[in-house]
C-alpha cells in the first residue's frame, strides 16, 4: 500500500515534469508527501553520511526536525522558497559540492519532488499519512511474531497483544483475534488502555526509521490518530493516570509527552544521556520517572519538564520501570539483573544518585530484565526477562512469593489481569501464556495470530 502510493505519486510527477505547468502540476505539487516521497529518497541517497553517528557537515537527515534545523551552513530549506534552499542547491549542483557526494546525481524527477515539496510548504505529513494509511490488509504470518507488549482492558475482558504492524485484541484465549488493528508501525513496543477503557494507546515504530504512537477507538476499532515522533521506535510509553497524556522514551535521549486528544507534543525533555527505554507517571500525574541506558531513573516535573532528582544509585543500564498502583514506589530493572524497589520521594536529604530511597533489592534475575509489573492490588511484583521463569515477589517484604513458567526464554511483556489472580506473559517464541498466580500453573497458551502454513516455511 505504502509502496503503491509512493510509486503512483512518482509516476504522476514524472509525467508532469515532462509536460510542465498546468493543472496536473498543481495537483501533483500539492500531493508531494514528506513521509511517502521525500523520506525514502533521503533514506536511500543521503543518510549514509548524514546521520546521528556521522553528521557530515553537521547535518542529520534521519528525522524531520533535524533536517529542518540543517547543518553547519544553516537550515536545509526555506519553506515555500526552493530557490533559497540549501538542500536543493546541493542536489542540483548550483552549490558545491554536488550531492550525493561521489555518486551519480539524483534523477531530475526526484530533484523535482524536493522542489515541489519545499515550494508547497515543506510540511511533515508523517503523522497524517500514518493515520490515513491505517486499517490496511492485515499481515500474513508464516511464523509467530515476537511479542513485545501486552495490556488488559480495565474490565479484564480484552487482552491487547502486539503483532507485526498491528495490535491484536483477544477476548478469548485462542489464535483467532477478535479484532486486528492494523497500522504502519512494524513494532509495537507498548500498549495501554485509558481508565475508561475507550482508548487504546499503542506505541512503537520501525527500528532506525521512525517512531509512532497510535490512539485507537476500542469500540469502533478505528484509528483516531497516529503521531510520528523521533527517528527510531518509541520505547516504554505510558499513559497518565487520567488518560490525557502519553509519555515515551526515544533513541535521541529525550522523553516526550504528547496530548492524547490532539496529538500535540506538550513537552520534550533531554535529561538522559542515552536511549530512554521506560517511563511512568506518578500517582497524581504531575511527575514522571524515566529510565534508560544511561543507568539513571530520573524524576521530572511532568508539567514544566524540570529535572527534580535521580531516584536510584546508578548500576547497570535500565530497561524497565513500573509504578505501584496507589503509592509513589517504582520497580526498576535492566542489564544488571537485579530488580530494585525505590521510593520516589526522598525520606532524608540525599546525595546525588545514592541509595537513600532504596526499599528492596530483590533476588538477581536469571538474565537481563525486560519488563516489570505490579499486581492491581499492589501486593505483588512480577519480573520478566531473559529467563523463561517469571518470579513473583511480595512488595512489602521483598520476599519471593511464587513464580510462573513462561515456557521459553526471553519474556518481553507481562500484564496482570485487572481482577487479579492471573498474569499474561509473552516474548521471544510468540506464544501468549496465562499463568494462575496461586498455583503457578499455565491455564492457557495460544499463538495470538493466525499462522498460514506454506511451502516457504519449510525451506
Amino acid at each position, binding site marked *: 500500500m505504502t509502496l503503491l502510493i509512493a510509486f503512483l505519486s512518482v509516476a504522476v510527477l514524472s509525467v508532469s515534469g515532462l509536460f510542465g505547468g498546468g493543472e496536473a502540476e498543481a495537483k501533483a505539487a500539492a500531493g508531494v508527501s514528506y513521509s511517502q516521497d521525500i523520506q525514502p529518497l533521503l533514506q536511500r541517497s543521503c543518510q*549514509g553520511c548524514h546521520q546521528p553517528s556521522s553528521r557530515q557537515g553537521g547535518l542529520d537527515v534521519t528525522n524531520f526536525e533535524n533536517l529542518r534545523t540543517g547543518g553547519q551552513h544553516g537550515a536545509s530549506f526555506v519553506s515555500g522558497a526552493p530557490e533559497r534552499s540549501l538542500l536543493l542547491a546541493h542536489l542540483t549542483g548550483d552549490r558545491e559540492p554536488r550531492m550525493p557526494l561521489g555518486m551519480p546525481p539524483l534523477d531530475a524527477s526526484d530533484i523535482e519532488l524536493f522542489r515541489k515539496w519545499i515550494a508547497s510548504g515543506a510540511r511533515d505529513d508523517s503523522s497524517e499519512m500514518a493515520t490515513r494509511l491505517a486499517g490496511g490488509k492485515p499481515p500474513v504470518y508464516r511464523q509467530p511474531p515476537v511479542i513485545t507488549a501486552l495490556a488488559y482492558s480495565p474490565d479484564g475482558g480484552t487482552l491487547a497483544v502486539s503483532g*507485526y504492524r498491528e495490535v491484536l485484541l483477544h477476548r478469548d484465549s485462542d489464535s483467532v483475534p477478535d479484532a486486528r488493528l492494523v497500522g504502519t508501525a512494524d513494532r509495537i513496543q507498548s500498549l495501554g488502555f485509558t481508565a475508561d477503557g475507550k482508548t487504546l494507546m499503542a506505541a512503537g515504530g520501525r527500528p*532506525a526509521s521512525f517512531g509512532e504512537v497510535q490512539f485507537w477507538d476500542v469500540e469502533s476499532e478505528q484509528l483516531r490518530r497516529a503521531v510520528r515522533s523521533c527517528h527510531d521506535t518509541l520505547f516504554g510509553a505510558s499513559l497518565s493516570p487520567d488518560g490525557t497524556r502519553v509519555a515515551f522514551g526515544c533513541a535521541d535521549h529525550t522523553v516526550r509527552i504528547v496530548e492524547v486528544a490532539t496529538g500535540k507534543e506538550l513537552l520534550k525533555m533531554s535529561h538522559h544521556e542515552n536511549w530512554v527505554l521506560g517511563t511512568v507517571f506518578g500517582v497524581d500525574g504531575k511527575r514522571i520517572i524515566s529510565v534508560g541506558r544511561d543507568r539513571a531513573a530520573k524524576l521530572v516535573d511532568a508539567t514544566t519538564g524540570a529535572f527534580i532528582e535521580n531516584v536510584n544509585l546508578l548500576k547497570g543500564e535500565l530497561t524497565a520501570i513500573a509504578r505501584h498502583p496507589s503509592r509513589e514506589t517504582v520497580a526498576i530493572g535492566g542489564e544488571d539483573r537485579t530488580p530494585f524497589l525505590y521510593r520516589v520521594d526522598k525520606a532524608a536529604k540525599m546525595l546525588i544518585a545514592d541509595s537513600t530511597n532504596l526499599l528492596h533489592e530483590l533476588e538477581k534475575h536469571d538474565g537481563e530484565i525486560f519488563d516489570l509489573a505490579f499486581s492491581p492490588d499492589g501486593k505483588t511484583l512480577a519480573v520478566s526477562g531473559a529467563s523463561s521463569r517469571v518470579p513473583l515477589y511480595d512488595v512489602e517484604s521483598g520476599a519471593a512469593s511464587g513464580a510462573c513458567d513462561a515456557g521459553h526464554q526471553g519474556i518481553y511483556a507481562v500484564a496482570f489481569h485487572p481482577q487479579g489472580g492471573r498474569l499474561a506473559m509473552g516474548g521471544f517464541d510468540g506464544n501468549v501464556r496465562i499463568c494462575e498466580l496461586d498455583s503457578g500453573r499455565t491455564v492457557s497458551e495460544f499463538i495470538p495470530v493466525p499462522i498460514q502454513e506454506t511451502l516457504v516455511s519449510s*525451506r
Partner: protein
Amino acid sequence: MRAAFAAALWTVTGAAVLGAGTPAAAGEEIREIRVEPSPLVFSGPGSVRRILVTGITAEGERRDLTAKATYEDPAGLVEAQGQGYIHPKDSGETTLRVTAGAFGVDLPVRIEPAAERATTFLKDVLPVINKVGCTQGICHGAAKGRNGFKLSLRGYDPRFDYQSLLYDMSGRRFNRADPGQSLMLAKPTQEVAHGGGLRLKRDSRYYDTLLKWISDGVPFGEESADKVRRLEVLPQEVFLTAPGQRQSVVVLAEYEDGSLRDVTREAHLGSSNTEAIAVSDGAVVQGERVGEGALLVRYEGQFVTVPVTVLNPSSGFEWSPLPQYNYIDRLVDGKLERIRVQPSPPASDSDFLRRVSLDLTGRLPSPEEVRAFLEDPADRQEKRTRAIDRLMGSDAYVDHWTLKWGDLLRNNRKFLGHKGIWSFQEWIRQSVAQNKPYDQLVRELLASKGSTGENPAVSYYRVARTPQDAMETTTQLFLGVRMVCAQCHDHPFERWTQDQYFQMAAFFSAIGIRPGFKSGEEIVYEKRQDAELKHPKDGRVVEPEYLVPVEGAPALESEGDQRPALVEWLTSKKNPFFARAVANRIWSYFFGRGIIEPVDDIRASNPAANAPLLDALAQDLKDHDYDLQHLMRTIVESRTYQASIQTNAWNENDGINFSRRIPRRLSAEQLADAITAATGSRVEFETVPDDSRAAQLPDPHVENGEFLDLFGRPQRDQPCECERKSDMSLSQALNLVNGPTVGRAVADPEGRIASLILGGASNRELIEDLYLSTLSRPPTEPEYVSAALLFEERESRAGTAQDLLWALLNSNAFLFNR
C-alpha cells in the same frame, strides 16, 4: 625457436601451447599440472569449493596456475566462477576438464543431493557476521559494544552473540513475521542509518544466508554438530621461489559431525610478516620480499599456521658446507640450505672470547685473559671449550644468571622490602651456583610456603599476590604462554578461553599471605576459608583444570591445595610447553632473539623460525634432566653460536635463522661494568657492599642507578622479557659522549691509565692495554700507528691516553656484543 616463443607466450597469457620438455630461457617450462583436491565432492548444490591448480617445473618447483587455468564441464553440472571457485548447480556426477597451457586434467566431481538442514547461527550465520566485520574490536565487538549493540570480540562467544542479536531490546533486530524487514539486514545494507557503513549487499550470498536463517526460525544449531573441529589448509606449506610469486590457498573446515566445508572466503587470513608476505582478499599469498613468515588462518575459534618462504631468486647459489660442531649446526644448516642462505664462518678467537664472556658472565675478558687465550697454541675448538669451562665455573657466571633470574622473578623491594630482596637474591644465587635442575627450581618456587626468613622461595607469591597474577606469571615465565587476554575474552589468536584463564587461576586460589612475626616478614599459607575463585561472569566457583592434558599428570581433587598437582603437571617431561619455553628463552640470551620471538609469547599464530631445532633443544634438556648449564654449553659450543658477524650475499637479509652473528648493544649492567673494568675505576652504589658491580645489585631501586635506567635496565614490575630495553637513543649517545659516567671513569686518578703510566708502561704497552681492555683485542697495526702518532704529537701522555680511552669507549666495537 618455436619453443622459446611458446614459452614466452606462456608466461604472458598462460594459455599458449607449450612444447613439452623444451628448456626455456625467457619463461619457465611446466612439465605437468596437478589439481587438488581430487576427487572433488560437494555436500550439496548450495556449496562452493575452490580447487588449486599447480604446475610443476622442470626443476620440480611448484607454480600456482589456479587463476590462469580454464575449467569446463561439458555436462554443465558445475560452473567455474574464476580463481578456482566451482559452483555446483545440481546434484550428480560429472567430470571437470581443467586446462592449463598444454596440459589438461580430468577432475572427477560428485555433488551429493541437497541435505535437508536449517541454516544455523553456529555454522552459517556467525561466520558471516565475523566476515563482514560486525564483531571487530572497533565495531560491535568492542568491550562496550557500539551504539548499544554488543557482540563478542571476533565472535568468540557464540551464545552471547546469539542472545544479543535476538533477545536484546525485545527482539528488535530480527523480524520473524517479515524476515526481509529485519533490522539486522537493514543496518548492514544501509537501508537505514548505520554508523558502520555498508557491510552487506542485498544481492549477496551472505545476505541470503541471514535471510534464510531468519525464515528458518533463527535456530542456534547444535554444538555437537555445527562447531568447527579442525581446519585444514592447502597447500600445507608455501614455498615461493621469488618475490612476486603467488599461491592460492584453500581453507577447509571440518565440523563436529564430520562434515566438511570450504570456508576459503569466510576464513580470516593474515600474514605474520607483512614485509615479506602479503595476503590478498582472494585468499592468495604473495611474496613481497625475500624472507619467511607464516600465513595465519583463523576461522570460528580454530587456528592454523602455514609456513611461507620467499626465496632469494638470484642465480648461482651453491651451498658450501661449514663444519658442524653439534646437532644445532645440523638443524640450522638444514633449514638454511633449503631456503638458500649461506651461513657465516666462525668468528676470530678474540671475538669469540669477548662474546662468550659477555654472554656467560656479563663481563669483558681482562687484557690478561685475552692475551692468554690468543697465545694458547691449542686447537681452536679445544681452547674454546676450555674457555667455556672456565667461564661457567666463575663467580661472574653466578652473578650474571642471578641477575637474569632476579629480573624474571621480579626481585624488587617494592614487593619484598629491604630485607626480602637480599634473602631472595641469595636464594637465587645458591640455585644458580649449584646449577639446580630447572624443574626443581620451578617446583621449589611454586610449591613454596612458610615465612620469608625460612623459605625465601615464597617471595614468588609475595610478588604475584593474587591468583590471577600468580597464574599469569607462572604461565608466561614457565610455559611461555600469555594468558592475560583471556581474562576478559577468549584469546583472539590462540585457543585459550576465558574459562581456562580462571581454571588455571583456581590453582592459586588457596594461597594466603599474612604478616609474619618479624617486621617486614610475610608468611605464605594455605587458606581454609574463602579459598575458592569465582568466575566474574556469573559468580560460580571455578574448579582448577590443567591448561592442556598431560599424560600421567595427577588427577585433580576438589578439596585442598592443588598446587602440588599443578607442579607435577607443569614440570612433567610430557608437558608440551615447559622444556620448549625455557630452551627458547635460554637460546635468546645467546642470540638476542628466540627461535620463537617474543620468547614468552608462544602460540599457534607465532610459529618457530626453526621448529625442529627448538624441539631438539627441548629434548636435549629433558634428556639431561633440565640441566641448564648443559643446554648453555651445547649452545655456545655450536658453530652457529660462534659465527662471525661478517655477512655474505646470501645471508645479509636473514635476521631470524641464525645464519650469522647479529651484534647487539651491551645491556645496562654489562655496559656499566664494562666501563668500570676497562677504565679501572670504581663506582659507588649506595646501600650495597663496596665495589659491588652493577650485575650484583639486588634490585632496580638502588641509588645511583640513573645510568642503568637510561640503558634500559628492567624495573621488575612485570614478569616479561620485554621489560629490558635494548634500544639505542640519542640521550644514551649524549650520556656516553658527555656524561659523567664515562668522563669520570676515564679521568679516574687511580684508574687504569694512572696505574699504567705510574707503572712505567711504554706507549706501545699503553695503547695495547687500552685496546685489550675495551675491545678485547690488540690494536691492528694501522690502529697502533695512528694512536702512537697522537702520543708523539702531544705533551701530556695521560691526557692523550684518556682521549684514546674515551674514543674507544664510544666506539661501536666497544658498545656492542658482537
